């Protein structure tokens, strides 16, 4: 019974994280230039590297999202999810500490996107905990590559 509950919890976390990553990636893939500018506003990357990140990161989010839902490379996708959340939390915190007043660019790159704030950090911490729950799972259910137990 306890194991069943854990498996259901892991499954819910996988689907929520997966849908969140897929949703977050779509607007960024559609508008790479706007997303690159959005990264630039954080004033955290040197040498114009925001463009490389704007080209690659949305695809990483999309692939991680698909992997989590489809049960492919779940361990790798979850660890990447943890790393991305840690980086996002760090980027948002440093911007807030430096008084940079910009929109988040987390889900939408348009002008009506959410402003950076404590709520964005709390949201990312929740995603971080969900990723940890998936990575720390005891049983592999509905995973196809590598095969489930």
């Amino acid at each position, binding site marked *: 019974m306890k194991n069943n509950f854990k498996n259901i919890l892991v499954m819910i976390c996988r689907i929520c994280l997966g849908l969140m990553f897929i949703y977050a990636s779509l607007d960024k893939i559609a508008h790479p230039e706007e997303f690159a500018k959005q990264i630039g*506003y954080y004033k955290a990357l040197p040498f*114009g590297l925001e463009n*490389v990140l704007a080209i690659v990161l949305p*695809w990483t989010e999309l*692939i991680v999202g698909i*992997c989590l839902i489809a049960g492919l490379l779940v*361990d790798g996708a979850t660890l*990447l999810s943890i790393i991305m959340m840690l980086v996002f939390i760090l980027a948002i915190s440093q911007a807030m500490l430096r008084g940079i007043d910009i929109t988040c660019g987390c889900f939408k790159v348009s002008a009506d996107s959410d402003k950076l704030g404590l709520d964005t950090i709390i949201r990312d911490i929740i995603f971080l905990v969900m990723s940890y729950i998936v990575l720390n799972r005891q049983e592999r259910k509905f995973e196809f590559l590598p095969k489930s137990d």
Partner: protein
Amino acid sequence: MLRVPLNQMLAIVILSLVVGLITNILRSDSIPILAKKISIVEDLNDVSGEPVSITLDQAKNLFDKGVVFVDARDDQYFKEGHIPNAWNSGFFMELMFKLDSAQTKIGPVVLYCSDDECGSSEELANDLFNEGFTKLYVFKGGWLEWSKAGYPVE
């Protein structure tokens, strides 16, 4: 026991790198691998496209000519002090309609925030550019440089 699936992680990163780069090459709105920094303009009249950056002297010059200044900082900082007659950015749509009805989209606008490290003036300039505004000056030195120079404030 936690798993450290480096090979799986690497596979996903390499796949996104390859797909991202190939898509960027194939799409019509591709971007360069490294970003260009917003350029400082020499002739203030020679602006009719993407937002440009201006120096303190150029900002003062435009201020003296009565060009609209928009303060892109948070409300709280605007209330504490701003460049005389500057508009508070507030809600984007509201600002856009206000600017458009006051001087149409080809009217010059100077945008500033706290200092060189704040990104909001550049962000606002790019958002206005995307909406069709064509004479956008980003005063990067912002409030800090302006007030340090002893120029008028209110």
